[in-house]
Each structure stands twice: as structure tokens, then as C-alpha cells.
């Protein structure tokens, strides 16, 4: 044990640091909305908390040993018994197991704690089996399936679409959309008002991405953008088109126009932080942005515009488009100014 103790200590430190990347959730617009709903009525927010929990399950239950570079692990002069001890003790460092500990200390919650630990181990076994199967096959990358739109910005849009799908935000939106589709397939009629609200929730789930359009490009991809002979508005347009394409697909079965209007407003406001205060983001985490003022204004104006488009007039959609285009023009110039 003495030989592997420093490795386990280092692993614990790495995982603790990695856990901080989950804190981006507190800067996410969807989290803001859920918190607001729960202040009003706790029960209403539980569904959304469950959605967030489902999406965080896999990253929180990941195998801690994957944090050690394989070459480094091979190079360490460990005996066979030390390697076995390391393998057997590493699941204790799984973040989901850590989260189960508070439940263990409350007798009434022991089944919950055991379920969390079992889930963590099951996910690790399944992921290991998946990696074992895939190791013998050509690399599979589902993001290759994302089509390239035509035009000189097409490849950039394809790249942006891939990037947007490597964070958890669109999957919350997808789960919301799927819940609605399943509800409709069970032959129940969806209240048109519910369709609008769900469409706006889908747009809200994606909206933090609109204030961190370059978060996954930092730092080297950002440099490539600076090297390309493109104007700022073209670079932003490629990002926005990828964002709107994902949003359109998700709101199509719900209420497309209010959802798209909300998306245009989210982008129009989000350009400010995207261009002037880009924040680095992590793959397979929720996007973290600025709750105030950007997130707060995004949420308020998105809801107001979406509801106005649904209940009042399509002129509000035209207004959202005009606002977006003005923002694209202005922040494109700000990008060009460096």
C-alpha cells in the first residue's frame, strides 16, 4: 500500500480539481431558471433536477484510473500486487461515491447511498466493456455524421456544431424535447401553451452557449480564427448558424417560432460576452457563463420575446431578428478591432 499511496493521493487531488469543473452549472441559465422554479414550488423543479442529475451521472461516475496517462502508469515501477491494489482501491475515488458518503452517515438513506455506489461501479464496468469492444474496431466518432452546410463557412459551421454537442447543455434540451414527443406519442394532446413553454425551456437550456461561443476554441482554436482572412461577422455568423440549427431541430416538434425568436435574442445578448469576455469551457460539462447581468437579461428577454411571438404578433419575431442582426454587425466590428 505504501507504494501506491502517493498515486492515490495524487489521483484524489486530480479528481478534486476536476470536480471544480462541474461548478460551471452555477453559471448556467438553465440552472438559474430551475432555481427560480424551485423557489416558487419545490416539486415543480424536481423534474428538471432529475434531468440535470441524469446527465451528470456518467461524468461523475467515470473511472478514476482514466485520469492517469497510460504510459505513465506503465512506466511506474509497481509490482503486480501493487497494480491490483491500485485497481481495487481506485473506485473509492469516484466522485459519485464521494457524493454517496453523506447519505451513508444518515441511516435512513443507506439504500440511496448504496444505489449511488452501485450505479458508479456499473457505469465504470459498462464504460470499460465499451472501450474493450471499441479498441478492436476502427475509431468511431458519431460527430463525423454532422453534415457540412454549403458555402465557404460550411466547414466552420460543421466544426461549431460538433463543438456545441460536446457539452451537456444541448442534451438537457434534447431530454426536454424527447419528453414532449413521448407525451404526444402516448396519444395525449399537448396544450399549445405547454408547447410554447417547453420550446422556451429548450432555448433557455441552450442559451448559456450563446454567451460562450468561443469557449471550446480557447486558446488555440481562437488563434486559428485570428489567422483566417474572415471578418468578425462571418466568424460569428458561422457560430450562430450552428447554434440556431441545433435549436431549430429541437424546437421543431414544440413551437418553432417562439423558440427561434428566443434563440435570436440569446445570441444577440450573448455576443457581448462571447466576443469581449470569452470564458474557457470544458467538454462534457455544462457551459458556465455570467448569471448577472448577461444570463439574467437573456432569460428575461428570451421569455418575454417568446411569449410575445406566441401570443401577440409575428412582428416580435421580426424585432428579434433585427436585434440579432444589429448585434451581429456591432460585435463583428468589435471582433475585427481585436
Amino acid at each position, binding site marked *: 500500500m505504501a507504494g501506491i499511496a502517493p498515486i492515490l493521493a495524487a489521483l484524489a487531488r486530480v479528481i478534486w480539481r476536476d470536480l471544480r469543473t462541474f461548478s460551471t452549472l452555477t453559471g448556467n441559465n438553465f440552472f438559474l431558471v430551475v432555481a427560480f422554479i424551485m423557489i416558487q414550488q419545490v416539486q415543480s423543479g424536481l423534474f428538471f433536477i432529475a434531468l440535470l442529475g441524469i446527465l451528470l451521472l456518467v461524468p461523475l461516475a467515470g473511472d478514476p484510473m482514466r485520469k492517469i496517462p497510460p504510459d505513465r502508469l506503465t512506466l511506474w515501477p509497481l509490482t503486480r500486487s501493487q497494480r491490483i491494489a491500485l485497481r481495487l482501491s481506485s473506485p473509492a475515488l469516484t466522485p459519485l461515491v464521494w457524493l454517496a458518503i453523506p447519505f451513508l452517515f444518515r441511516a435512513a438513506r443507506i439504500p440511496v447511498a448504496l444505489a449511488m455506489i452501485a450505479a458508479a461501479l456499473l457505469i465504470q464496468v459498462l464504460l470499460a466493456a465499451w472501450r474493450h469492444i471499441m479498441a478492436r474496431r476502427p*475509431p468511431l466518432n458519431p460527430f463525423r455524421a454532422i453534415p457540412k452546410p454549403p458555402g*465557404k463557412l460550411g466547414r466552420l459551421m460543421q*466544426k461549431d456544431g460538433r*463543438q456545441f454537442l460536446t457539452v451537456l447543455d444541448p442534451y438537457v434540451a434534447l431530454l426536454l424535447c424527447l419528453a414532449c414527443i413521448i407525451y404526444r406519442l402516448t396519444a395525449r394532446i399537448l396544450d399549445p401553451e405547454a408547447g410554447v413553454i417547453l420550446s422556451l425551456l429548450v432555448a433557455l437550456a441552450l442559451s448559456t452557449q450563446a454567451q460562450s461561443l468561443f469557449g471550446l476554441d480557447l486558446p488555440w482554436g481562437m*488563434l486559428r480564427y485570428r*489567422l483566417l482572412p474572415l*471578418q468578425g461577422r462571418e466568424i460569428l455568423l458561422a457560430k450562430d448558424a450552428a447554434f440556431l440549427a441545433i435549436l431549430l431541430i429541437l424546437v421543431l416538434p414544440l413551437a418553432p417560432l417562439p423558440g427561434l425568436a428566443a434563440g435570436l435574442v440569446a445570441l444577440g445578448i450573448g455576443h457581448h460576452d462571447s466576443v469581449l469576455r470569452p470564458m474557457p469551457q470544458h467538454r462534457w460539462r455544462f457551459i458556465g457563463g455570467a448569471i448577472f447581468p448577461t444570463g439574467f437579461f437573456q432569460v428575461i428577454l428570451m421569455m418575454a420575446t417568446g411569449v410575445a411571438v406566441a401570443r401577440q404578433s409575428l412582428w416580435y419575431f421580426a424585432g428579434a431578428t433585427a436585434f440579432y442582426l444589429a448585434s451581429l454587425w456591432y460585435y463583428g466590428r468589435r471582433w475585427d478591432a481585436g
Partner: protein
Amino acid sequence: MISSRNLSRRFGEFTAVDNVSFEVPSGGICALLGPNGAGKSTLMKMLTGLLAPTSGEAFVAGYDVRKEPLAVKHAAGILPESLGLFDALTIDEHLLLSGPIYGLTHAETRRRAAQLLHALSLEEGRDTFLNQCSQGMRKKTALALALLHNPRVLFLDEPFEGVDPVTADTIRNLLAAIAGRGVTIFLTSHILSIVNRLADQILVIRGGRVVWQSAASDLPQSLEEVYFGLVEASTVDDLPWLGSPQS
């Protein structure tokens, strides 16, 4: 083709590049040498429009880097120190992304991409995502991106580092050939043996100041001797535990 006049860059109190002036004619290969932290990358960034100078001016292919940055980007091929690649794209997709942005047709982009991938031995890995590539493959991809649009000027930051000797030789021959066709090349490198065989103009920078500037043919001694004469010789601290019986 490249002209720098009293170019300076300060970061607060620190002067990274101090009053640097030089000219590189069309078809010339200028090597910028200097120790780590001498200001080479800062100078390169200013010449390529990535960093605004504090004072002075620079022209690339006749365009003012400060006033006409888009024209400079069209005229120049740039290999930055950090390569600037997207993890979410494959090697092939990087080239297919870049061509149309520089105004190449899809067919022409594909034709040139295939030739560059072949020349740089990247054909086998062309469908590999950049986050799964070796450092050498990443370097070669960034170099292919710099060459794809047939630039009139090339800025290459450490083009030979991290690539195998055969590829380094291929790159050297390629650069010599395109310089012969009138392309101007400005490069930084720590591999003096390659620089010695390639460059026709030498610029040594230290502490942000140019300490040597001449044609390669005018060097009074070998490049290595000149370089070590200009840059402080390294001192090796005694580490007595190295080589002693293992504890």
C-alpha cells in the same frame, strides 16, 4: 516584401521587442534566431497582425499590418508557435475548411490538399481528429494550412521542431524550392544546422533588440560560432546526486 520599421512592443514596463528594423526582399529566406524569451514570437505576432505594435510600422507584401490585416492574411501563410488547430476537425477537414475561406474552389482545395498530404506524409492519418494526432502530425497539418492558398509570404515559427529528420529535410527542400519561385520566407528556429543550409539572411535578437543582422554569406564565422558569441553561454549547475550510487 517584408518591411519592419522601428517596431516595438511593450507590456507595461517590460519591452519585449525594441526598435526592430529590417527588410526581407522577395524570394528571400530570413531566419530570426535568439534564445527563449528573446522576443521572437512577439515580433512574429506583430508581423502577422496578431499583436498590435506599441510603436513603429510593418508591411507585408506591401500591406500595412495594422491598417490592412485581412489583406495581410490573404497574402501570407502563417505557422504559429501554438499551431492554432481545432480539436473537433480531422487533418483533411482542416484543409477543406481553409481552402474556400481563401477563395479556392472545392475541387482545387481537394487537389492541393491531396498533394500537400502526400508531400508531408500525412495521407494515412488524414481522417484523424487533431486531438488524437502526434505533435509531428499537428505541426505538419499547420504547415499544410500555411501553404494551401499559395501565399506570397510565409511566416513560420519553429517549423522544424517536433518533426522527424526526414520530414524536416522535406520541409527544408520544399521551402528552398518555393523561395526560388519568389515566395518570401521569415522563420524562427533553434536548429542552427538547418538554418545554416536554408537561410540567406540572419537576424539575431536578444532581450528584444536586434544584435546581429547580415546576409548569411557575410557571416565572419560559422553560424553556430556567431550565435554562441552573441548569446550568453549556458552554465551547468553541478547536481552531485546525478550519477551517484542509487539511494
